[in-house]
């Protein structure tokens, strides 16, 4: 779509695209430990049935996936592989971190061989806490991710800056950018606030069930 890579897209089209994108998510299952079984229950079992949410859990490789679900303990030996997988995925891509281990090290917070949080390696969009989280919690995480995708500005995502419409609205209200998302130069010179792009370079992650991050 020429419109997308030019960097501007009419709002109704954006809406349509986002809607269709959010309901055809291909997820790559990066199951590492105990949480992988709960992920399997959420994705593979008839009781939870993730496909009704428009998520397809069976891509053959990360190159076909829209988002990755990292579930389980990431060890220092495994970390390079996780990083490489993330780099193989095509943009736009998202990541869900499932379970305390992937979020922050979990029960192994003082272990010598466990990476304390996969967010040290890849940017995470949704954190699902729990040890292991119930499949329902993972499903909620996916729904929240879909909501985020629906609010996204696809053209901005294409340009590489993850500047969501929501954040643009906020920045517009604050008078930092104009309707097109261009910076209003004098506001920048007046205020000492960090530039909106910097602030919005990585959208704030969502935590299932609320609660503070860190």
């Amino acid at each position, binding site marked *: 779509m020429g419109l997308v890579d030019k960097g501007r897209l009419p709002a109704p089209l954006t809406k349509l695209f986002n809607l269709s994108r959010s309901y055809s998510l291909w997820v790559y299952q990066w199951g590492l430990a105990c949480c992988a*079984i709960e992920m399997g229950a959420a994705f593979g*079992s008839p009781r939870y049935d993730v496909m009704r949410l428009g998520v397809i859990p069976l891509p053959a490789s990360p190159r076909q996936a829209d988002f990755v679900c990292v579930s389980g303990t990431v060890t220092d*030996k495994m970390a390079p592989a996780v990083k490489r997988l993330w780099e193989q995925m095509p943009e736009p891509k998202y990541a869900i971190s499932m379970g305390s281990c992937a979020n922050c090290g979990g029960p192994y917070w003082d272990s010598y061989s466990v990476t304390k949080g996969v967010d040290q390696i890849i940017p995470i969009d949704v954190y699902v806490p729990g*040890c292991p989280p119930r499949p329902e919690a993972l499903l909620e995480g996916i729904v929240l991710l879909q909501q985020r995708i629906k609010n996204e500005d696809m053209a901005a995502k294409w340009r590489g800056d993850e500047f969501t419409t929501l954040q643009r609205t906020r920045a517009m209200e604050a008078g930092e950018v104009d309707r097109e998302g261009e910076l209003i130069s004098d506001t920048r010179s007046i205020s000492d606030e960090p530039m909106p792009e910097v602030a919005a370079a990585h959208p704030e992650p969502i935590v299932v069930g609320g609660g503070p991050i860190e």
Partner: protein
Amino acid sequence: MTLTDRQQLSYIASQAADARLNVELETEGMTLNIGPQHPATHGTLRIIARLDGEQVVWAEPVAGYMHRGYEKLTEVRTFPQVTSLINRIDWLGSFANEVPFILAAEKLMEIEAPPRAQVIRTILFELSRIANVSLFLGDLGVQMGAITPVFLAFRDREYILNLIEGATGGRFHPNFDRIGGLKDDLPKGWIQETKGAVKKLEEFCDTIDDLLFGNEIFQSRMRGIGVIPADIAKDYGLSGANARASGIDWDLRRDQDLPLSYDLADWKVWTHPDGDSWARCWIRLQETRESCKIVGQLLDQIPAGPVMTKVPRIIKVPEGEAWVATENPLGEMGYYVVSKGDLGPFRVKIRSASFNNISIVPWALKGVYVPDIITILASLYFILGDIDR
């Protein structure tokens, strides 16, 4: 007779074609890297196989992608805290991991759980075995391209998980076993519920028996593949269903005197003389049925009484060493606990079944064809947490 030019040319051409054919048939060495993230490895095991054409000449498992340092972590936890760690070793049958450690601690403290707690422990132990092995049975099909069994397994496993959750509060990691007994008594109506669920699991076993074990493709890919003779199995320290499939009649539930109530039930240890992939899977199927039987019988024999003996509020385990091993879903799992009289153990050595079970992989994979790698690995059945700890 002299050859004409034409005959000479055709002779040369045919020689060249033969040579080409020979080159084509010659097989080249290749190194195949399976994993570290591959569906067939149940997680993050990496297998490096050197191939000659379609045949494996040399294979080596690379463990350690899931090493979480349990043995070191237990040294900085107190005794009651250790159970919350160690039930993540074999994550499919979590409750079974807690039992040997708790028994070892009880042995050091010279106490014993009350009879009611012992029976409930045994029931939960067997339920976690069912939860574990039923997923194995479902997963077997996936390795060979049959997707349906895994959906069935996930569906029917939920009944067991519901029960474990009902009794302990945790679907996966119950952390329910305490030194001296159990945390709580069973909830009301649980026994009746369990009887129904066990029936459902028995039906599941029958379905898998028809669907998978009666399948011709399954049989031809499993029978006679990956044969492990009994003496080799003993040399490598195989245990559990892998050893019993090679004809070794050895089950720690029966052959060992532990404060668990297996002798109250009437059940059978299955063995198989073949030692091939088929035998290993078949043994596990039969064991699931036996477990259902054990649970069904024990449910009627739960004695009345407390579920906890008197233990001090702050648990200090006296100085000493103890070794307790039980028959876990994957094989023999044991803990060697050394205590110096502190709040926490001084040193814990964990003997987990899968680590020994995959040590046979280089031997078992030698000379097999590439598609058989997957089925042999599947039938050996390991869990990554149990290998790497």
